[in-house]
């Protein structure tokens, strides 16, 4: 029971991060109609910024804030400078540009911060004894903190989408860009904002995720995360923010249970399983668990 609970806690923490990144992917997909392959590397870039600042003894909260702002800017600039001029030509061109950005950011990280791995300090108490005991199982404050912050983030996003004028304009732009423009919505500004918010979510996810494991900050950190988040976004149905969040959590827990209880699965094989899951979804239910039928274009 104890071991099960601890695996569950870990799974939920990872799942919360996948959920946040999947939500970011869905936001971009709904607005622009493409998967942002660079999402993970954007998050890695801003996580490096946050880590760099922590080494200067700046409080982690402040580093998170700065990384979030940097993320927003990076996302907004990407939309304005790279995506907008190219998406008019074709979706494929956009995807390739985003793949290019993926590689460029990763190399830039290497140049700026080197290829050694680092440990990132946590926002929350992170000592060996910073846990509460649940039925004998250890629930670390760091885990609880991740759950809480991601829950707040997701809650805020849902309020934004469903309760505000801006959110309505974002949904309208996602649903039919031309009609949105004809209704008087400045669609360019809305898309820029969507990309900015999406990259800001990624920045928060990166700063939350990295401290969960020692020596986690490295050039290869975000690729598996992107795979899991993409799987979650696909499972959820690409255009369904709620679906992405639920699928993210499910994948996190499934991963933790599988690698914990099935000894043959570990390390690299986990990612292979995520790939298999993606392929299965594409074959069996292209619109995902919660998505609408129209979304089959990727």
């Amino acid at each position, binding site marked *: 029971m104890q071991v099960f609970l601890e695996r569950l806690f870990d799974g939920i923490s990872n799942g919360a991060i996948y959920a946040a990144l999947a939500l970011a992917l869905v936001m971009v997909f709904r607005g622009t109609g493409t998967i942002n392959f660079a999402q993970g590397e954007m998050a890695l870039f801003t996580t490096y910024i946050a880590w760099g600042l922590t080494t200067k003894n700046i409080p982690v909260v402040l580093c998170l804030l700065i990384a979030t702002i940097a993320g927003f800017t990076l996302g907004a600039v990407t939309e304005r400078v790279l995506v907008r001029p190219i998406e008019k030509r074709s979706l494929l061109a956009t995807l390739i540009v985003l793949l290019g950005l993926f590689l460029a950011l990763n190399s830039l990280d290497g140049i700026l911060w080197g290829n050694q791995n680092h440990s990132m300090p946590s926002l929350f108490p992170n000592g060996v004894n910073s846990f509460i005991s649940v039925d004998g199982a250890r629930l670390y404050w760091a885990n609880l903190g991740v759950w809480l912050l991601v829950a707040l983030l997701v809650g805020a996003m849902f309020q934004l989408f469903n309760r505000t004028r801006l959110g309505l304009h974002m949904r309208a732009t996602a649903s*039919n860009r031309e009609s949105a423009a004809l209704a*008087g*919505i400045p669609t360019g500004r809305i898309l820029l904002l969507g990309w900015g918010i999406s990259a800001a979510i990624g920045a928060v996810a990166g700063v939350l995720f990295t401290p969960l494991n020692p020596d986690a900050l490295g050039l290869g950190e975000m690729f598996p995360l992107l795979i899991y988040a993409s799987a979650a976004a696909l499972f959820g149905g690409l255009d369904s923010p709620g679906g992405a969040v639920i699928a993210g959590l499910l994948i996190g827990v499934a991963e933790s249970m599988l690698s914990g209880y099935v000894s043959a699965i570990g390390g690299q094989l986990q990612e292979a399983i995520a790939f298999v899951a993606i392929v299965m979804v594409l074959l069996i239910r292209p619109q995902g668990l919660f998505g609408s039928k129209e979304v089959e274009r990727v």
Partner: protein
Amino acid sequence: MTLLEVRDLTAGYGPAEVLHGVSLRVEEAEIVVVLGANGAGKTTTMRAIAGLIGRKGTVNLDGASIIGLSPDKVVAAGVSLVPQGRGTFAKLSVDDNLHVGAAKRRDRQGIKEDLARWYEVFPVLASRRKQMAGTLSGGEQQMLAVARALMSRPRLLLCDEPSLGLAPLIVREVFNVLQRVNTEQQMAMLIVEQNAEIALGIASRAYLLEAGEVVSEGTAESLRESDAVRRAYLGY
């Protein structure tokens, strides 16, 4: 008073020019109809005025040029287009669709009043406020598209083939509503139609468009009498 003045409007898609210098005008509170065969450039004219495609020439609203404006700025200037095919936000509720129509407005109270007014004018929409717009019938979606455009309180309503794909009875209903709004709100309208009979019935003037050029213009009466329009659009 001339509300909309279009002079020598050229526009097209990429290198292909579709409009070769279209000129037309709409007076304050007037209904004007543009007739023309498939591919004549009616939709292109509307899209050019609304700012959706690149265009050259003169487009003035109340004397001020609106030719360089982006679509949302054209709406802010007072011109709203009901696009061909309706452009419904399928996954938004009827209510949300109408709220989107008020995107440029800040007057909460006024928006509320207008919402109530258009629900009264379009009772089919009122009974489906919470329904996803994509599940409405064609006629209902056309009503929704008109109501959505009206939510911006336009001075000029552009309507692209409101009768497309609708049963005759529904077409009648749509045009009745347009006429009613025109009379009650003194709202000017530029309507593109292939159903010449019904459109000329509510219009004061009309233009005939062929291959990107205005080939004939006059009062609705005079166009109804003209042989060209009769043969091509009225069938007698």
